[in-house]
């Protein structure tokens, strides 16, 4: 993106930041640290910088306001390259989600392009896989609850519960960082969702030269039992940026110190 375009883009989006509701801005601080993901591009420990994350996933009413302000993201107007046929398919019309969906339920049937731009228009961005996984390993009381059997079970119970995308935001639990619904409502887009490749042929992914398991020495057997995480990585691996899914929503993050992040780029 050229500098002039970038300025124009920022200008286009900037006015809503001021008009956004409190809920849209409600964010919680996640203190950075180092953790070992189930697997990642860099095999071993990953350092995550401190960041702010939306307390709730983006809702139907949040998104309605967005498409009112940005008609190019309305169902009938979206550029085809940016969405498959399922984009907002459960909505009643371009500027109405109808009576069946609840205003406070998470928005779903959103492509990665749309989610990404939504965040950008609020001066935010989508979380990275590492940021998302880092924030989501916290339960109510611990920053890293992955070793707790009860916590894993809680996540798995959700995977077995049908149609949770219809539930309201905030209906699950508030985690250690003060963030709701990372588990229990919908899957969530991440900015680099496809950087860890689970190919269509999952059993081939154990090849030494593939990115997926190059950290197998570092990933202990206990982590291989974390099949809830396996399922998330598998889901992300099955997506393309233009897909819209009934069980997939998103939320945004913001670096804790914007100036630092910008200058480091």
């Amino acid at each position, binding site marked *: 993106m050229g500098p002039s375009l970038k300025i124009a883009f920022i200008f286009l989006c900037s006015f809503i930041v001021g008009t956004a509701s409190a809920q849209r801005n409600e964010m919680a601080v996640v203190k950075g640290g180092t953790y070992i993901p189930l697997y990642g591009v860099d095999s071993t420990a990953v350092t995550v910088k401190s960041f702010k994350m939306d307390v709730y996933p983006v809702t139907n009413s949040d998104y309605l306001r967005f498409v009112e302000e940005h008609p190019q993201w309305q169902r009938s107007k979206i550029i085809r390259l940016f969405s498959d046929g399922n984009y907002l398919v459960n909505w009643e019309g371009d500027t109405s989600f109808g009576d069946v969906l609840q205003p406070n339920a998470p928005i779903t049937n959103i492509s990665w392009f749309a989610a990404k731009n939504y965040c950008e228009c609020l001066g935010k961005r989508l979380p990275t896989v590492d940021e998302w996984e880092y924030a989501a390993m916290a339960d109510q009381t611990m920053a890293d609850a992955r070793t707790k059997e009860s916590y894993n079970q809680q996540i798995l119970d959700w995977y077995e519960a*049908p149609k949770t995308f219809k539930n309201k935001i905030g209906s699950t639990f508030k985690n250690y960082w003060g963030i709701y619904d990372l588990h229990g409502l919908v899957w969530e887009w991440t900015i680099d969702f496809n950087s860890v490749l*689970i190919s*269509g042929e*999952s*059993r081939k992914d154990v090849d030494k030269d593939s990115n997926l398991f190059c950290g197998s020495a570092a990933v202990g057997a206990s982590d291989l039992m974390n*099949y809830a995480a396996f*399922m998330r990585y598998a889901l992300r691996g099955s997506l393309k940026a233009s*897909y819209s899914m*009934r*069980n997939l929503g998103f939320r945004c993050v913001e670096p804790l110190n914007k100036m630092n992040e910008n200058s480091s780029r």
Partner: protein
Amino acid sequence: MSKTTKTTVLRSALLAGMASLLFSCAEKKKKEYASTAEIPATREMIAELTSPPYVPTPVGKRKAKKLIVDMEILEQEGEMTNGVRYIYWTFGGTVPGSFIRTRVGDEVEFHLKNHPDNKLPHNIDLHAVTGPGGGAESSFVAPGREKVFSFKTLNPGLYVYHCATAPVGMHIANGMYGLILVEPEGGLPPVDKEYYIMQGDFYTKGANGERGLQPFDMQKAVDERADYVVFNGKMGALTGDNALTANVGETIRLFVGNGGPNLVSSFHVIGEIFDKVYVEGGDMVNKNVQTTLIPAGGAAIVEFKVDVPGTFILVDHSIFRAFNKGALGMLKVEGEENKSIYSGELEEGIYLPEGPGIQTMPSTDEVKESDIPAKSMAEKMEFGKATYMQTCFACHQGEGQGIAEAFPPLAKSDYLNADVERAIDIVLYGLTGEITVNGKKYNSVMTSQSLSDEEVANVMTYIYNSWGNSKKDVTPAMVKSRRN
């Protein structure tokens, strides 16, 4: 199957038939192909898919075609056994998945559809495919999407298909498997009845029979400690009203698969000998077989003629699985008796292979109380029936009729109705020795049962309120008072 699919199938069958009539002279010289890969697949046809235990119409002599298979993946709640619910992941809404029937040389165009309400991505690995991942590589499909790929059936045989998405074992353990048959040139020899049976092992957080929605237990799956080993996805899928049926004199062909994920099956039909077994679903035919081994992720075709009437029990002959974990099915054969082959009238006495001394159940100090007590008479009956089907059914049978000369009837039983406390004691402590029930003498062993007071009360209430018995209501307090 939808109406349109049916008509398309019929139409293409008709067309094929007409074509073969027209060109019958030319066809007399049978064309030989150097390899099955060269067999041309010309016309298009929608594959007939069936739910277990049924199989599609035989391929017979039809020509190789482009066969379109339309399969939908559904994650849905089902019942493992009475009161035990489980989230199954399915190909076509059933466990095992829909049966696919092809012939060698077919070009199968596979449409795999992942329902939008599903939570997870899936794919399919068909062992009948020659190609990377058996198709898994090109069929990885997110919820709300459809993937299409095609393959040529090069080798005749009976093959397993299953999901191969990470974590692979879990997708299989949740029921994502089925069978695809590739018939040889000219088809399989005709038989009277064909059925589809597939074994699978299931792993639940709760023990066998524990009620409520049971989550999958990864640790038990890794340890290969199955809570349920069943035919066609659940206990009772092939028993009672769901039993397979046949008539005396008919030849039966069973397409038997084993989805696993862990356990191999020693497939056996009690009271029958397999005339023919297509070993491991391949070309080798073994004859006069009692039990055939079916590997996890493998299959076998067994054929036999039923000569006498009766109920024939299908089991995994790793026998505790059959009577304690569910691997039990039934084939009900009706028709004229043939006393020269079998006569039950000459039986005398009972064979107790382990002797009465060994058959006591391990006693525990504590019997776990049920988590979900029955709140009404209807629930008592429901829960009692569940316990009955798990614990009592094998000996006393579905209608409480017992087994002649061996196990006394519970239906209209004078012995049972005469003394409720004695009946409770028998369930709690077992019974050995001769008794007289409805004028007939029985001398066998009933072991003591490790059931909670609540469970005993429920099952006895169920028995007393079924099959013309005295309609007593047995309470947990009554059971408790009989314990020492």
